[in-house]
């Protein structure tokens, strides 16, 4: 009987000590760090399988990231031209140069017009010769095929699409005009296309995210199957669901981190490869445009996406497969 009392006293002491130990933040952190490192070690011992899963995540993250960045750059490009919408008025080629000059000053007097530039056929030809690289071909022509052009810029307060369209109609109605073309149109079309493309990127991203969840989920499922015996034994000696779940959730997280780093590498490499042709193209258009990748923001975005997908994928697998493994 004495021994019994002693025993029970010991057991209460034992329990309060256990509780204190478990609630101590230092041991809590140390335990998580230990499990995280263990999980990383497991992945390191299976480099090929790990890289394959991480690569799927990497590619799935890199594709939407690339598309997004491209769209972002194109958006900047179209934004730069916004508000500079003008009307190009191609004059009839029967019109003498002097009459074209007079027409230019007349249109310059309109209240809705800010500026008019006259490009004579000779100037147009010269510019074309320099820019296009077709100088030799042009030299073989007997006659200048280019018409005189008026470049009409609307006044700033009249530069909205509707006013610009009205101006275009007014210019088209002039007897000297062959054709009045609104330069705004392609900007509007580009903007509309970009909006559509952004939707497309969202859709592709969602599909890729789903694929990543399936791949991570399947990888973790295999890992759980491989460690089935260990799960049963640890349950038998008092492991909680949380304890058993933890290494698999960390595995998923690591897949996400490695995948995000791979994706970042892919995106940066892709943009590095694109940068010099884009610069050449921009030079051709006398633009200072440069591709931008937003390195830090991109890295954080990819990491967040990777960790989220990895964790979610493993969470789903753990929820579906761990509950069925019970000792018995």
């Amino acid at each position, binding site marked *: 009987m004495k021994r019994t009392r002693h025993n029970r006293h*010991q057991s209460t002491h034992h329990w309060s000590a256990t509780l204190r130990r*478990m609630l101590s933040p230092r041991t809590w952190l140390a335990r998580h760090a230990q499990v995280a490192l263990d999980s990383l070690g497991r992945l390191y011992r299976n480099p090929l399988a790990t890289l394959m899963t991480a690569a799927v995540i990497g590619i799935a993250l890199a594709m939407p990231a690339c598309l997004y960045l491209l769209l972002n750059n194109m958006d900047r490009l179209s934004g730069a031209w916004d508000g500079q919408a003008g009307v190009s008025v191609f004059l009839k080629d029967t019109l003498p140069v002097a009459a074209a000059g007079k027409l230019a000053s007349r249109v310059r007097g309109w209240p809705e017009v800010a500026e008019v530039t006259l490009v004579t056929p000779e100037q147009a030809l010269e510019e074309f010769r320099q820019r296009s690289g077709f100088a030799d071909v042009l030299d073989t022509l007997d006659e200048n095929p280019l018409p005189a052009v008026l470049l009409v810029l609307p006044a700033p307060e009249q530069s909205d699409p509707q006013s610009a369209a009205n101006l275009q109609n007014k210019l088209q109605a002039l007897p000297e005009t062959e054709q009045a073309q609104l330069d705004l149109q392609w900007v509007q079309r580009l903007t509309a296309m970009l909006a559509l493309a952004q939707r497309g990127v969202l859709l592709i991203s969602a599909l890729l995210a789903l694929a990543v969840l399936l791949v991570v989920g399947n990888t973790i499922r295999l890992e759980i199957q491989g460690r089935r015996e260990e799960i049963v034994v640890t349950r038998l000696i008092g492991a909680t669901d949380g*304890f058993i779940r933890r290494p698999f959730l960390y595995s998923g997280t690591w897949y996400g981190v490695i995948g995000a780093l791979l994706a970042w590498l892919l995106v940066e490499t892709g943009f590095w490869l694109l940068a010099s042709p884009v610069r050449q193209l921009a030079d051709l258009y006398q633009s200072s445009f440069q591709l931008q990748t937003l390195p830090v923001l991109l890295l954080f975005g990819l990491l967040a996406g990777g960790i989220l997908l990895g964790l979610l994928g493993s969470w789903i697998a753990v929820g579906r497969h761990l509950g069925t493994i019970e000792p018995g």
Partner: protein
Amino acid sequence: MLARDPGFRPATSIRATNDFMIRFDNVSKRYPGGFEALNNISLELEDGAMAFVTGHSGAGKSTLLKLIALIERTTRGQVHVNGQNVTSISRRRIPFIRRRIGFIFQDHNLLFDRTVFDNVALPLVIAGYRHQETGRRVRAALDKLGLLSKERMYPITLSGGEQQRVGIARAVVNKPLLLLADEPTGNLDPALSLEIMELFEQFNEVGVTVLIASHDTGLLDQLGYPVITLDHGRLAGAGQQSA
């Protein structure tokens, strides 16, 4: 008289459940297939006692131990462990009951991809012990079982008797109140079996309640502890085996 004598008795009189490490009240266990492995079992095991469960193969010995460790759940009746009614305890709380029980299996259930040290440390890792404390306790347990020189080895390289001792070290490392052993000597020769039983006696002497399932009646006769005999899931007889 009987009450002072730590040991097993059929539940005849109503007493405070606190005095018992294990108490079964009219417990039945029916497996999903419909087979009734235990039928209306009532028994009590005093705190600090050591006893055996015996019976033919399929009599329900393993089932009885599994009900105590909550590996299987009762179909009817009540099970108390260490004064606590665990009959319908929630799944979430089961791990904390199991941490106070050391379970020793016939096939040891060791993890073969880990060293002896890591196998024995597992219950302490689960309970969240500090690194140094874990090392200290694991070495103490290994020392007690004469395995200190094998701590870096893998279980596969050990003999059957050594593997069983590793299983025992893992069961006692967290200082459980109750030791359950299911055929712990099933694969061992008589000399080794007796050695293992002496180890259980030593743990019992420091206050651990011990319940061992075994069909080795020869060994039980030698030891002279209380014996619970099962026959097709029913209590066939109980009491002190003739010494």
